[in-house]
């Protein structure tokens, strides 16, 4: 009579797993730190310029290259522009560009990857194209594309999307192919489920979590890439405040006014760091194997 039935025990295990999941989410310090840090940066970039009357492009010749003070928290640049507000406006530009790159390459990559996993011939062609694109070092391809199409924010988005899409496509294709081999997909096929149904109900969900993780890494990567491109003069054109532009401007006055590089630089690093932490944390959290692994530890 006291014998626990299998379903009882299963329920218990499921409940425990749920609890572990919830606990993992809260104790997953990477995920929490990354998420909160990133949200904080985004909120600052959105809100502070809305309530501040300081114009990021207003030049105050008398206040050129003033070190950080209460009035100018990050100091001013060589045109006397307030660096703090410029970094915030720069965040808007850089984050917009990078998030667009992440979203676009995730969407296009998923479409290509899923198509490739379904049609054999197409798979060969698409994957060879991806191989060829991946063979060209990413930044170099971006620089070449920028050189060809000219410097605008939109070309940065297009160039970086071209750079990152192939790796997304490959990842999606690989996990879609793995899922397709699974018994539950076979079972659905035997039951007469249509390709579309299998794709939407079974394959796409299995691709989602690695996709989110990779998108967060691409987001972080594109922040670095945009900054590097703008820094080289092959990115977002000059008067606009982007993180790369602010840092490029600091290059010439580096020895005289190190703060012009240090503060914006630290913000860029923190932002990338938060996104990487977020990606790492998400990967740990979304990986179903982690539940078992944590438990056995």
């Amino acid at each position: 009579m006291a014998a626990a039935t299998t379903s009882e025990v299963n329920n218990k295990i499921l409940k425990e797993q749920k609890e572990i999941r919830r606990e993992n989410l809260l104790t997953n310090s990477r995920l929490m730190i990354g998420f909160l840090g990133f949200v904080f940066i985004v909120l600052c970039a959105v809100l502070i310029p809305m309530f501040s009357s300081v114009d990021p492009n207003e030049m105050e010749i008398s206040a050129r290259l003033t070190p950080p003070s209460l009035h100018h928290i990050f100091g001013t640049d060589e045109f006397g522009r307030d660096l703090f507000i410029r970094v915030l406006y720069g965040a808007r530009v850089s984050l917009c560009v990078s998030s667009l790159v992440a979203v676009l390459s995730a969407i296009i990559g998923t479409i290509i990857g899923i198509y490739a996993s379904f049609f054999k011939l197409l798979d060969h062609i698409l994957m060879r194209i991806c191989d060829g694109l991946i063979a060209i070092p990413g930044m170099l391809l971006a620089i070449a594309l920028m050189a060809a199409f000219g410097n605008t924010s939109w070309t940065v988005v297009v160039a970086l999307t071209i750079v990152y899409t192939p790796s997304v496509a490959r990842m999606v294709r690989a996990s879609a192919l793995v899922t397709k081999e699974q018994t539950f997909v076979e079972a659905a096929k035997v039951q007469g489920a249509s390709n579309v149904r299998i794709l939407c109900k079974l394959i796409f969900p299995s691709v989602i979590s690695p996709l989110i993780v990779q998108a967060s890494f691409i987001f972080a990567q594109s922040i670095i890439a945009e900054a590097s491109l703008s820094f080289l003069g092959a990115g977002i054109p000059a008067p606009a405040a982007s993180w790369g532009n602010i840092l490029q401007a600091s290059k010439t006055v580096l020895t005289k006014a190190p703060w012009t590089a240090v503060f914006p630089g630290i913000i860029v690093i923190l932002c990338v760091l938060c996104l990487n932490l977020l990606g790492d944390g998400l990967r740990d959290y979304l990986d179903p194997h982690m539940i078992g692994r944590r438990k056995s530890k």
Partner: protein
Amino acid sequence: MKNVENQSQVLLEIKDLRVLFQGRKKLLPAVDGVNLSIRQGEIVGVVGESGSGKSVMSQTILRLREHESEVQYEGSILFDGQDILKLPLASMSKIRGNQISVIFQDPLTSLNPVYTVGNQMSEVLMLHKKMSKQEAREKSIELLNLTGIPSPERCIKQYPFELSGGMQQRVMIAMALACEPKLLIADEPTTALDVTIQEQILDLIVELNKKLGMSVLFITHDLSAMAQLCHSVRVMYLGQIVEEAATAELFACPSHPYTRGLLSCIPRLDTDREEELPVIPGVVPPLTDVPVGCHFCTRCTLADEKCREEEPPVTEVTPGHKVKCWKYGQTEKEKEAVQ
């Protein structure tokens, strides 16, 4: 074959062994107060479902678990007069593979995929017997011959994945025997193999036991393999030995409800086809949820209040046959009522 070895010396003696893993909230006892001794030349079987702690116990003899997770021990394991649990971990390498060897369940994952069979076999010989490369090679061929591998010269040049499962397990056995160990721990050596190959491997173990006189600790969940091979048997459930007896005795008069359950699950040719095979209800509870009192009480049809509250003592049924159960020693009448 059964009681021949009774007079020989005790080789390994496990006393009150507890192995505790660090769980999420508390220490989890994977092995919970095990007493077990193995005589020279004896084949001792340990049987139990997965999760019964039999593999952990066998790996504790070589202290292999310490490398993989946080482990705490209580009790002692005496081997050749010294307590293995008190040795510094570094000096374990003199015992491992030399005096005590193991064969694991899955031969393919147990062999290193990037080294040849010869390389992996020579490694043991060069390490413990200080052989030269050439000597080790010759000895390896000899050992592979002993385990019945058809063309050992070719085999030592091959990589594990080029061999069949049976051949891989033979290589594992040959490797385990390389330094003529006093004790061979066979941790479910046949589970991953085909039925015909299983038979061959079991025969090989018996043959080597007779030829070399080494003791064997045979771990399995396969009762028929157990019957075929072992001099005596321990039945494990949730980290405890619930019954121990000579093999024939155990099969003839199983005394613990769990043992009876296990034995009744074996299909027989003479049973009625229409009749459903009995099963033990429920599943082994997880280590986080070990019941108070008798560990088996959650699945035992005989369990009462006492079983759920107090741990049962070990009672001797006949000399050498022990059982850990409150219900043992009930009147015959009650027993019949149960069956």
